[in-house]
């Protein structure tokens, strides 16, 4: 691929030596230890790793929901200290406002900006259409399937003009068919909007299918084990031979540390 074309430009997202320790009573849990990562604008990055290795914590720090114990995350060289509209989180359990219709949920961000109603309606209609939910605009979340709810959640942050889409196992609770169609839709949206995506998953296949880069994390304490660029041409085919080679390679990196990490995990439990 191209030699780093961003060198002269301002860095998009920089995670600089981030550690995070949670106090639980008298005890402490180190969720992240000296994590360094930079992400370019427009990249699709997957974070993958065993449960408990700090993926959600890292995402929540980027979102501004948590502060790092040490180190810093910055966007365009501005330190992130609080949630902001430039970053949008898509939660696994949707976190839609249940008292708002699909339309109102998607329009929530634009409404906060005190835009004229006409613009809010335009933006809402555009993103309703983008996720194929125009016909369901006046339904409440409880009247939607899981896949439809997740579409609303994606449209809600995009309508807010977020530049960085943070997705924490967004399709983990969906059935296989719905997941596949949402993966495809997400790729279409990504290609169309050029939004930067950080996507947490524990499916190697999903990571290889979607991303430009797979960042492998390991537990005890959470850190980055490997950072693997995926150069397969898009659209990707999960049954292709080269796809499976990449998938095997990443699975190996995951399992090798699981074996090496086993004693650490035992220690953490004890």
């Amino acid at each position, binding site marked *: 691929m191209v030699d780093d074309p961003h060198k002269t430009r301002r860095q998009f997202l920089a995670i600089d030596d981030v550690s995070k320790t949670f106090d639980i009573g008298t005890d402490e849990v180190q969720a992240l230890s000296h994590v360094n990562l930079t992400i370019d604008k427009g990249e699709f990055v997957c974070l993958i790793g065993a449960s408990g290795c700090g993926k959600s914590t890292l995402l929540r720090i980027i979102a501004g929901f948590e502060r790092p114990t040490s180190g810093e995350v910055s966007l365009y060289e501005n330190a992130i200290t*609080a949630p902001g509209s430039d970053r949008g989180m898509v939660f696994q359990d949707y976190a839609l406002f249940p008292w708002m219709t699909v339309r109102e949920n998607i329009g929530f961000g634009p409404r906060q900006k005190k835009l004229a109603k006409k613009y809010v309606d335009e933006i809402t209609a555009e993103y309703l259409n983008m996720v194929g939910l125009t016909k369901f605009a006046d339904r409440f979340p409880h009247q939607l399937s899981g896949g*439809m709810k997740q579409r609303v959640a994606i449209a809600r942050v995009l309508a807010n003009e977020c530049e960085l889409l943070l997705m924490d196992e967004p399709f983990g609770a969906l059935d296989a*068919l719905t997941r596949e169609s949402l993966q495809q839709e997400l790729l279409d949206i990504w290609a169309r909007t050029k939004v930067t995506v950080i996507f947490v998953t524990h499916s190697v296949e999903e990571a290889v299918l979607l991303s430009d880069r797979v960042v492998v994390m390991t537990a005890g304490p959470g850190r980055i084990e490997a950072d693997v660029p995926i150069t397969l041409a898009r659209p990707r085919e999960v049954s292709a031979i080269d796809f499976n080679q990449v998938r095997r390679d990443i699975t190996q990196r995951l399992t090798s540390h699981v074996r090496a990490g086993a004693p650490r995990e035992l220690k953490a439990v004890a």
Partner: protein
Amino acid sequence: MSTIPSELPVPARARSAARAPWLNERVQSILLGVAFPLVLVVLWHQLVVVSGTKLVPTPYQVGVMMWDFTFGGIHNDAFSGTIITHLLASMQRVYGGFFLAVAIGIPLGLMIGKVKVIRQMLDPTLSLLRPIPVTAWLPLSMIFFGLGPRSAIFLVFLGAFYPILLNTIFGVRSVDTKLFEAASMLGCDGSKLFRQVVLPAAMPSIFNGLRLAHGFAWILIVVGEMTGVPTGLGSVIMDGRTLSRTDLVITGMIVIGVAGFLTDRIIVAINNWVLRWSPQHHG
């Protein structure tokens, strides 16, 4: 993105499925619901007749009293045809106290639930005052507000206040924190959060409190109107007791029961409309 989701849930109730069984169900529920009180009334009548008591009227006598209380023309005494006067007087006090409790309880509950300093400041006091029965306030309330409707309003307020306050606090405390996170990343924070997220999210719990409080308000009106007010259903019952007119007492009880029931249905209807986004909270 023309792929319209293949997984469309259709939330229509399976009502059309079979008309006859559903109708039968409905008819049965009405029949049973009516039959039981009818049996009770017959039993009441028989017990009065068999025991020969003069202290308890028969259902028929109560019916006559009810007619006279509503339309007059039978006993032609101080109570004939006065139902509207008393009912309106009581409703004024019930809803005076109730809406006062709403106006103070909901905002206070939102703030106690969401703002730590306010919680730390008010929680001990409110927790200490809460176990005191409303009726224990009666003497003080008569000193503060005199022998009149304001005393009744105050007692109703006290009784309605805690269910509203506590349910509002509970509602706020149990809002999924993810909703606050979602709101803040979408640019909604600070005081905007109260109206746009905290209040609607706590609404199911708040309505729980409103319904409880509304029930208490109707219960307390009798106590409130014992303080010597000349009108109101509570005062009718107290007069009935003084005059040993049990038919009047029971008539007053029935009017309170029916008024309480009908207004509860109104609250439930409002609840179902406001919470149309959450069918599991429908009454």
